[in-house]
């Protein structure tokens, strides 16, 4: 069966520090991968999605970047965190090939920038 792992669960980082959140998927090949953020009062905001290795699409210009170095690995990064980067970050995957609508989300990372 397919599983998605996301870590760490919680993170407190000072302003100006770097960030690296990792997400891996098991049990499937060539998944579509997504990073979402849930900020207070903002709902679930799509940040990045990837349909293949090295293919990253950004939905919202911001202080963050994403990379997909391997088929089932998706990384969210920042060189210098801002206070406004605080939020609940969620990684998700869906099957590729045609329009598949089922997303499976990871358990999320609560990031607090202080």
């Amino acid at each position, binding site marked *: 069966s397919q599983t998605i792992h*996301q870590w760490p669960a919680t993170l407190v980082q000072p302003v100006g520090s770097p960030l690296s959140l990792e997400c891996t998927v098991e049990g499937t090949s060539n998944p*579509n991968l*997504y990073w*979402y953020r849930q900020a207070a*009062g*903002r*709902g*679930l*905001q*799509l940040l990045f*999605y990837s*349909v293949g290795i090295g293919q990253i*699409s950004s*939905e919202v210009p911001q202080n963050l970047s994403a990379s997909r170095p391997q088929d089932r690995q998706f990384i969210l990064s920042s060189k210098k965190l801002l206070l406004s980067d605080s939020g*609940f970050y*969620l990684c*998700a995957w869906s099957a590729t090939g045609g*329009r598949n*609508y*089922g*997303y*499976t*989300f*990871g*358990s*999320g990372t*609560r990031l607090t920038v202080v």
Partner: protein
Amino acid sequence: DQQVKQNSPSLSVQEGRISILNCDYTNSMFDYFLWYKKYPAEGPTFLISISSIKDKNEDGRFTVFLNKSAKHLSLHIVPSQPGDSAVYFCAVNNQAGTALIFGKGTTLSVSS
């Protein structure tokens, strides 16, 4: 501009009664609609979906209704249970079909 709107941030319902969560969308080209449920500190989980070729889809206590002319969908939970207390997100596929667009969510509280 929001493409998916959930105008009620919260809803309180008594156990056993019906919960109705609403969602409006702006683009008549959207053709597949989903509801997700989220508990605090967890990722959202898929609840129920509906294609634009239907106007109703039912799964146990959960029913989703789609009104294409009004660009409106709703989720009915009958009977509501305390375990249903969570944030409910409405979602649609973006126009490219590459990602889901979510509403801001409605927090449902079911009291016993």
